C-alpha cells in the first residue's frame, strides 16, 4: 500500500530542461531525420468516399526515373499485410484491395528518391473506381437497406458495430417516471480533430544484415507499436526498435499505427533502404484519428426546486469506416459512463451504439480522456438546459447538486469510485474570481439596452490515469507502466520511463519527482523516454495517464532506491537501518545529523567494496511496474464570459476563469501551461472547429482554411485558480491534468453563448451563422454540409 506524501513535490516552478534545444531550433522531430540513402514515400488516396476499385495501373509510376517501388493492396495481400488489426479488435485496411470506404483512404504507396518525385509519381497511378452510395449521416447508418460498408467482414449485413450500456436501467426509468421535471435534449458533439502542429510520420529502416528494424515514429506509445508490429508482421520483437524522438504535439492523434507507418516498413523491406513518410496536413485531417462524433440524446430528471435525481443518455457513436478507436477492451465507449458528472444522482443509465460510416476511422483523440470529453459536455450542457427550463441560475443549480466532500470516496451510479474532491469550494472560488454576481448584474443592465452578454459554467469531473490492469488493456496489453531509477557511482541519476512526452515537460517533471524523493538536484537527473531499447514497457501517454501511472511508478521506484540507500547507509554507518532518519538527500543516525551520508556518498559506496548485508545486492537502483488501483478524478470549475453581436452572430470571448484541482502540482508552471492549452481547445471547438461532410462523403474540413483553429486573437487572457485535493491512492496524491481544460471548457463557452442569446440549445460550433440561426429559432446540423 503506497502512502501519500504530505509535503508538496519539491522544486516547484522549475524552468524546463528540454527548452534548451527547442529554443535554438535543435529539436529532433521525425522529419528532421536524414539517413544515408533514405527514400521518401507518398500515399495515393481515394478521392471518393465509397467505391469498388475496378483497376489499378501503376506502370507509369514505376517507370518514373526516381521511383524505387510502388506498393498496392495486391502487394500487401501477398505479404499478409493488406489488413491489420485495428485498436478495437476490428481490422483495418493498410491499402484498399476491394473497395475504398472513406475519402482519403490509402490506395497505393510510392517510394522515390525525394518527396517531390514521390508526389509527382502519385499522379502517374491510374485507379478506376465504381462509385457506391455513401453513408455520411450516422443517423441513417442503421436504416434498413443502407449500403453495407464492411462487407469484408464475413456475414456482415449492416453497419452496426456494438451496443454497450452502463448503469441501472430499471432504477433510472423509475426515477424518471416519478420526476417532477424531465428535460430532454439532442446534443451533438461534432467530429473534430486534434490537429497537432507536427503531422504524423515515420522513418523505417530494416537492416537486412542484422535483421533489426529501427523505426522513428511520431508515436505517443512506442512500446505498444513495437509489440503490435511483432504480433502483426511476424517480426521478432527483440529485433524491433521504436524511437519516439521529439514530437510536435500529440493530443491523442499519435497513438495508433496508421497505414502509412506500416507502409514505410514494407517500403524499407522492399527497397533495402530507410524510407521516410511524413503526411501532409490534408492527410492528417482526412485520414488520422479524428475525435468525438457522438450524437447524444440526453435526459435529466429533477424535482421542481432543482434537485437533480437522474440522468439517462442514448448515444449514437460514429466510428467511421473501421473501428480503430484506442479504447480499453472492455470499454468500447471508453469512459463515457462518467457522464454522471459531479452531481449526487439517484440513478443513471446510458446506452451507446457504435456504427460504421464512410468516413475516416477513429474517435478517441484530442485530449478526450477516452470519451470523458463527450460525457462532460453532455452533462454540463443538459444541466444548463434544466436551469433554462426551471428558470434557475446555473451556478445555483450546480451548487445545489454538487457532491459534498464528506461523500468521498464516492461510487457513482455507473460504478466509478471518485477518489477525492471538494467541489463546492472549487465552484465558490471560480465564482469569486469571476465576480459572478457583478457579471449577472452587468448582464441584466446590458440586456435592457439590447446588448447580449453571456455567462457560462462548466463543472467537470474527469476519470483519468488508466488503469488497473485487471480491467484495462488495449489489445490485450495491460495498462500498467514501468519505471527504472538508477543512481550512478558519482551520484547522478537516470530515470527511464515508458510514457512519452509531446510537450508536457516530462524531462523536467519526472526529474522533479526523483529529485524530491532522493534529494538529487534535478539537473543531475536524466530522464530517458521514447526508445523501446532503453526504457521499460508501458502503454504510453494519452488519457492524462503519465502522472497518475508513470509518475506513481517513478515515485515508487525512487522510494525503493531510497530504502536501498538506507540499508547501504546503515552498512556504512555500522548502524541498524531502523535507527536511521532521512532528510532530503541524506540518511543519518537519529539524533546525530553529523553522521549523515549523502545520497552521492551512498551511491559510490554501493558500487564499491563496501560489505553488504546478506541478500542485499550492490548498485543503487530501483524499479517498479505500477498497476494503478483505480483511476484518478481531477475536477474543476470553469466560467466563461462572452459578448455576442446580435446583428452578426459574432462571439467574443471576453474572459475565462478556470479553477482546476489535479491534486498536488509537481511543477505549477507546467500545470498552468497544460490548462492554458486546453482552454484554447474549448474556444476552438465551441466556436469554429468541425469536420462536416457533404452527401457524397466529401470531407469539408480537409485543410486549415476549412478546419479553423483558434489564434491568439480569439483567446482571452486565461485566469487560473486552483484547489488541491490529493488522490488518496496515488503515492504523490497527483491526479493528472493534461486534458482537464479540453474536457471542461467547451461546455462553458457554449453555455455562455446560449445564455447570451437566450436559446436553450444549439450545436457546436457556434459560428456566426449558427448563432444567428439559433436566434431565429432555426439552428442547423453542424455535422453535415450547410445548405
Amino acid at each position, binding site marked *: 500500500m503506497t502512502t501519500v506524501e504530505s509535503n508538496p513535490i519539491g522544486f516547484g516552478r522549475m*524552468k*524546463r530542461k*528540454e*527548452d534548451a*534545444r*527547442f*529554443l*535554438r*531550433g*535543435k*529539436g529532433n*522531430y521525425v*522529419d*528532421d531525420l*536524414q539517413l544515408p540513402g533514405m527514400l521518401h514515400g507518398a500515399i495515393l488516396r481515394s478521392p471518393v468516399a465509397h467505391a469498388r476499385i475496378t483497376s489499378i495501373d501503376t506502370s507509369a509510376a514505376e517507370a518514373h526515373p526516381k521511383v524505387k517501388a510502388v506498393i498496392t493492396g495486391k502487394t500487401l495481400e501477398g505479404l499478409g499485410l493488406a489488413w491489420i488489426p485495428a485498436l478495437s479488435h476490428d481490422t483495418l485496411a493498410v491499402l484498399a484491395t476491394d473497395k475504398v470506404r472513406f475519402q482519403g483512404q490509402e490506395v497505393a504507396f510510392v517510394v522515390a528518391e525525394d*518527396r*517531390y518525385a514521390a508526389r509527382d509519381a502519385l499522379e502517374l497511378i491510374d485507379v478506376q473506381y465504381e462509385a457506391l452510395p455513401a453513408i455520411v449521416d450516422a443517423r441513417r447508418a442503421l436504416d434498413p437497406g443502407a449500403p453495407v460498408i464492411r462487407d469484408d467482414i464475413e456475414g456482415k449485413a449492416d453497419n452496426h458495430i456494438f451496443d454497450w450500456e452502463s448503469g441501472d436501467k430499471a432504477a433510472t426509468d423509475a426515477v424518471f417516471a416519478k420526476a417532477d421535471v424531465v428535460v430532454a435534449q439532442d446534443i451533438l458533439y461534432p467530429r473534430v480533430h*486534434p*490537429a*497537432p*502542429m*507536427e*503531422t504524423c510520420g515515420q522513418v523505417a529502416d530494416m537492416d537486412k544484415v542484422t535483421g533489426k528494424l529501427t523505426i522513428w515514429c511520431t508515436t505517443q506509445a512506442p512500446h505498444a507499436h513495437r509489440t503490435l508490429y511483432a504480433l502483426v508482421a511476424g517480426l521478432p520483437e527483440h529485433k524491433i526498435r521504436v524511437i519516439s524522438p*521529439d*514530437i*510536435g*504535439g500529440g*493530443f491523442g492523434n499519435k497513438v495508433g499505427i496508421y497505414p502509412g507507418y506500416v507502409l514505410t516498413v514494407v517500403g524499407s523491406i522492399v527497397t533495402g533502404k530507410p524510407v521516410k513518410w511524413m503526411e*501532409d*496536413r*490534408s492527410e492528417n485531417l482526412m485520414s488520422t484519428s479524428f475525435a468525438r462524433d457522438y450524437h447524444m440524446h440526453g435526459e435529466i430528471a429533477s424535482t421542481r426546486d432543482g434537485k437533480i435525481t437522474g440522468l439517462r443518455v442514448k448515444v449514437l457513436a460514429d466510428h467511421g469506416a473501421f473501428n480503430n478507436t484506442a479504447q480499453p477492451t472492455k470499454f468500447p465507449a471508453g469512459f463515457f459512463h462518467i457522464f454522471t458528472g459531479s452531481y449526487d444522482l439517484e440513478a443513471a443509465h446510458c446506452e451507446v451504439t457504435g456504427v460504421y460510416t464512410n468516413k475516416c476511422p477513429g474517435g478517441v483523440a484530442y485530449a478526450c480522456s477516452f470519451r470523458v470529453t463527450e460525457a462532460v459536455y453532455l452533462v454540463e450542457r443538459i444541466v444548463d438546459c434544466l436551469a433554462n427550463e426551471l428558470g434557475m441560475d446555473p451556478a445555483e443549480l450546480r451548487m445545489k447538486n454538487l457532491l459534498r466532500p464528506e461523500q468521498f470516496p464516492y461510487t457513482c451510479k455507473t460504478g466509478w469510485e471518485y477518489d477525492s474532491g471538494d467541489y463546492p469550494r472549487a465552484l465558490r472560488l471560480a465564482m469569486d474570481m469571476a465576480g459572478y454576481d457583478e457579471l449577472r448584474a452587468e448582464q441584466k443592465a446590458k440586456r435592457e439596452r439590447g446588448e447580449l452578454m453571456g455567462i457560462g459554467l462548466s463543472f467537470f469531473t474527469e476519470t483519468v490515469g488508466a488503469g488497473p490492469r485487471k480491467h484495462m488493456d488495449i489489445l490485450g496489453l495491460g495498462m500498467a507502466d514501468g519505471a527504472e531509477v538508477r543512481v550512478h557511482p558519482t551520484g547522478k541519476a537516470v530515470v527511464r520511463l515508458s510514457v512519452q512526452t*509531446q*510537450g*508536457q*515537460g516530462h524531462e523536467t517533471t519526472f526529474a522533479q519527482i526523483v529529485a524530491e524523493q532522493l534529494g538529487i538536484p534535478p539537473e543531475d537527473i536524466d530522464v530517458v523516454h521514447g526508445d523501446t531499447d532503453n526504457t521499460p514497457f508501458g502503454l504510453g501517454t494519452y488519457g492524462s495517464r503519465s502522472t497518475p501511472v508513470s509518475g506513481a511508478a517513478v515515485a515508487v521506484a525512487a522510494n525503493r532506491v531510497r530504502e536501498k540507500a538506507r540499508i547501504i547507509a546503515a552498512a556504512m554507518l555500522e548502524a541498524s537501518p531502523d535507527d536511521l532518519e532521512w532528510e532530503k538527500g541524506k540518511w543519518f543516525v537519529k539524533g546525530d545529523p553529523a553522521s549523515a551520508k549523502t545520497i552521492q556518498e551512498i551511491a559510490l559506496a554501493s558500487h564499491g567494496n563496501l560489505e553488504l548485508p546478506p541478500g542485499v545486492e550492490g548498485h543503487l537502483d530501483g524499479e517498479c511496474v505500477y498497476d494503478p488501483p483505480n483511476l484518478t478524478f481531477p475536477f474543476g470549475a470553469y466560467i466563461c464570459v462572452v459578448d455576442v453581436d446580435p446583428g452578426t452572430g459574432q462571439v467574443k470571448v471576453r474572459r475565462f476563469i478556470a479553477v482546476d484541482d489535479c491534486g498536488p502540482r509537481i511543477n505549477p*508552471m*507546467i500545470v*498552468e*501551461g497544460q*490548462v*492554458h*492549452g*486546453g*482552454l*484554447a*481547445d474549448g474556444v476552438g471547438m465551441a466556436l469554429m472547429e468541425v469536420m462536416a461532410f457533404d452527401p457524397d462523403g466529401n470531407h469539408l474540413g480537409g*485543410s*486549415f*482554411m476549412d478546419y479553423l*483553429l483558434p*489564434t*491568439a*486573437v480569439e*483567446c482571452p*487572457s*486565461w485566469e487560473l485558480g486552483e484547489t488541491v485535493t490529493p488522490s488518496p491512492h496515488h503515492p504523490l496524491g497527483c491526479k493528472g491534468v493534461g486534458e482537464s*481544460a479540453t474536457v471542461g471548457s467547451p461546455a462553458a463557452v457554449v453555455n455562455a453563448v446560449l445564455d447570451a442569446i437566450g436559446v436553450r440549445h444549439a450545436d457546436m460550433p457556434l459560428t456566426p451563422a449558427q448563432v444567428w440561426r439559433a436566434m431565429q429559432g432555426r439552428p442547423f446540423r453542424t455535422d453535415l454540409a450547410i445548405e
Partner: protein
Amino acid sequence: MTVNGQEVTRDVEPRLLLVHYLRDHLGLTGTHWGCDTSNCGVCVVWMDGEPVKSCTVLAAMAHGRSVRTVEDLERNGVLDPVQQGFMEEHGLQCGFCTPGMMLTARWLLDHNPDPTDAEIREAICGQICRCTGYENIVRAVRWAAEHPAHEEVPA
C-alpha cells in the same frame, strides 16, 4: 542567397519551396512546416528583414535576398532576449511552433519595443499553437520587451 549572414549557393529546382531548401538542403531544421495552405505559420523565417511564411516562397524567389532563421537568434552562445523570455515564461511546450513565434516576436520588438498584449496577439495571429493557449507566449514576449539586453546564459 545569404542565410544567417552566410553566403550560400545551391542549384535547385525552381519549384523547390524555401522551407524545404532550408531544412533538406541546408540542414537548418529549426524551421518547420505544418500545413498546405499557408495558415499555420510554423514555417516563419525572415526574408529581407521581414517575417514571411517560408512554405509560400520559392527558394528561387529568395535568390539574392537575405534569409534569417531561428538558428541565428542565439549569438556567441548568448540567447536572444526573446529566447530567454520563452524559457522564463514557459512559452513553449512541444516546441514546434516556437521558432516561428520567436522570429515574429523579435521583429515586433525591433519595431515596437513596448507592445501591448493586444499588439502581441495581433502580431502572432497568423501562427497557430496547439499547446500553450498563447498565454505564456504573450508573457514571453512581454518578458523580452522588459529585458531587452542580451543576458549571459549557460550554454
